[in-house]
């Protein structure tokens, strides 16, 4: 017969100061791990919700990012003739785009942060499903007008409706704020392709082409045709996988965060071990009594292990509660792919919290195993005689 769980619960309540202190130690460790995971999770979901699996991003052969790619207008004309591209009326759904980086002062750094500026034509806006205006209107062709992503509007004091930004050869008026859901578009600035490319002296040195395939089945064929055509000299991948690969921006922080959590976890399991050893030592007579009553060694082992797990679970729950306020807070991370900042929200998802609880239980198991086996191995007579 197993020792009832209420025995362990009561013991934890009786020694509430020790219980709470040990649990708080575990909680902080879990909180550190969870905040890093929430950051990475937020960044991943921003990139994952960017781009459509039906669309193909075309860059110069060898280029791994839009920023280092170069495409001419001639290539664009040739690309449009390739079979497998969806049509909107008579026009193939293809968007020629220019990407560059501009610098604006932000709330965190008056020195200025880099932002992605994208020049495109109305066709390019139509191809971005789910992108809508939150305020104002789209930019007009041939005008120095820009539309900013909604995260930019909140993080950059200069980027506001009606104000103007200085870059290229002059002032650009902000005429709208766009909302791309969770996507990376929220950290970009859109403007007229021709106006922007002429401001940056790149009328024929554009960055990339976005194509929409007729259906999901033609996507691989379209990509193959583009990659194999030596005359075009381009490489193509789906828009979705291009953005997914950018999650590597979080790699340094992720590495640092995991490293720190693991080391903190070692310290916290030592602490849990200490608590459990003390708990075992103080209850020697109880353990002896339990044995006399007929509870088996295994039962005692399991009981003390469970107590340690309960203790760490409490820590895990507190840890989760500690990081909950982080949820949906906006932050920014610089990416070496785009050389600009992407804003995203911390995402404390249930899956992450489960990882945190699992991490806490792991610490509890490590910390509880030795004390529990010591408890189980106690000789009945010596245990009863101990003070």
């Amino acid at each position: 017969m197993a020792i009832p769980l209420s025995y362990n619960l009561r013991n934890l309540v009786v020694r509430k100061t020790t219980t709470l202190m040990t649990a708080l130690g575990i909680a902080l460790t879990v909180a550190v791990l969870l905040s890093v995971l929430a950051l990475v999770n937020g960044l991943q979901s921003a990139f994952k919700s960017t781009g459509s699996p039906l669309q193909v991003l075309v860059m110069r052969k060898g280029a791994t990012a839009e920023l280092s790619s170069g495409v001419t207008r001639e290539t664009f004309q040739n690309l449009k003739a390739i079979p497998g591209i969806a049509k909107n009326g008579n026009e193939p759904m293809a968007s020629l785009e220019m990407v560059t980086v501009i610098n604006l002062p932000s709330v965190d750094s008056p020195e200025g942060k880099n932002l992605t500026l994208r020049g495109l034509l109305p066709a390019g806006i139509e191809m971005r499903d789910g992108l809508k205006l939150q305020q104002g209107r789209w930019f007009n062709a041939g005008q120095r007008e820009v539309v900013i992503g909604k995260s930019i509007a909140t993080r950059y004091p200069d980027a506001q409706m009606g104000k103007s930004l200085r870059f290229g050869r002059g002032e650009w008026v902000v005429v709208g704020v766009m909302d791309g859901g969770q996507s990376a578009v929220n950290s970009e600035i859109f403007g007229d392709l021709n106006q922007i490319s002429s401001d940056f002296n790149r009328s024929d040195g554009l960055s990339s082409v976005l194509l929409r395939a007729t259906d999901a089945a033609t996507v691989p064929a379209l990509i193959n045709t583009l990659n194999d055509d030596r005359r075009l000299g381009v490489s193509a991948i789906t828009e979705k996988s291009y953005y997914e690969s950018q999650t590597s921006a979080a790699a340094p922080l992720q590495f640092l965060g995991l490293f720190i959590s693991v080391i903190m976890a070692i310290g916290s399991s030592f602490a849990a071990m200490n608590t459990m050893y003390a708990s075992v030592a103080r209850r020697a007579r109880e353990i002896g009594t339990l044995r006399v009553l007929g509870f088996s060694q295994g039962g005692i082992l399991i009981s003390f292990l469970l107590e340690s797990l309960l203790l760490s679970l409490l820590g895990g729950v507190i840890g989760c509660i500690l990081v909950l306020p982080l949820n949906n807070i906006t932050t920014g991370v610089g990416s070496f792919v785009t050389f600009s900042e992407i804003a995203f929200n911390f995402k404390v998802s249930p899956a992450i919290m489960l990882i945190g609880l699992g991490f806490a239980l792991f610490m509890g198991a490590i910390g509880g195993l030795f004390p529990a086996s010591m408890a189980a191995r106690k000789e009945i007579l010596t245990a009863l005689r101990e003070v």
Partner: protein
Amino acid sequence: MFRFLPLMVKNSLRNRRRSLLTIGSVAVSLCLLGVLFAIYNTLFLGEATPAQALRLIVRHRVSLTQSMPVSYRQKIEQVPGVKQVMIWQWFGGTYKDARDPKNFFARFAAEPDRIFSVRTEYEIPEAQKLAFQRERTGCIVSQALAEKMGFKLGDRINLVGDIFPVNLELKLVGIFTEPQNEEVLYFNRDYLRDALGARNPRSDQVGAFVVQTNSADDVARVAKTIDDTFSNAPAPTKSESERAFQLSFASFVGNLKLFLLLICGAVTFTILLVSANTISMSVRERVGEVGIMKTLGFTQGNILGIILGESAVISLIGGAIGCLLAAFLCQGVAHSPGASYIQALKSLAITPMIAVICLGVSLFIGLVSSVFPAWGAARTSILDSLRYSG
């Protein structure tokens, strides 16, 4: 106070397992704290070397990826205090298989006739220097890179361009030594221009200039003058000291400063909890004993001191072990591939200053965590403590 030291040590040896676990948990936490302090120190507090202090980097205000006209050089040279200006162009590209991070190292186009007078800390045999200046397709690498990649003089090094649409076939003509263990390759900018072709608009553009000033005091003024000169040009500049330039890569990743400070806070608080917990456990076990000690004539102050001292001894030992561990870890990080990206991490080390801070933190933790239990034990009346049963 010190005459009680043997008593403190004896006390801490009484429950060895507990003391060892406490020491262990203080040690790992302080090891972590030490590494974080070291990172903070090299990134944000490190000093520039004397040669570095004379240099500043001029780049496009937006980022290194955007270029400036090469004609800026003449204007920069006219700024008072400027000794020399060298073109410094990030090439990027890939060497062999880019998927292997080992193949990542910095590749720059530079000017062979100026590089050794601008970067005075670079040392190279005279014959190799001349070869670099003479051979258009020649390149030089740092000692650290040559060792890592196994490069020998005369090796062919082929780079496939990405930012620049050209492929370079370089020949290794020199290996230089420098104090910072950089992993870097330099080749002749003229070769890049030839490869691009004179008609390519990018052959008249450069990514950055390294400016050498006459004295370190001039750097700030020169930087401001240069930026003011080009503030209304199509390509505005940003000039900063070489050290600040290197740091901008680290801070680009995010608000690293805040991140490090928050984590340090969480770690310190966690150790405080852990050791306060242990100390109060061991004090509770000893209430009866404290009663006997008081009967024997130990004063409240004595009791307080003995308990505080015991806790301080335990956490100081933990702190010392933590420092040692941290020193090993820093060595490891400094030689890891990650350090190729952030130059400052190469000099990651536990300096005596950091060791002192770590020991100070552990002393602080030992004292603060035991002050409440110790105070409680010291104040309990003799009768109460003798009557107390565990």
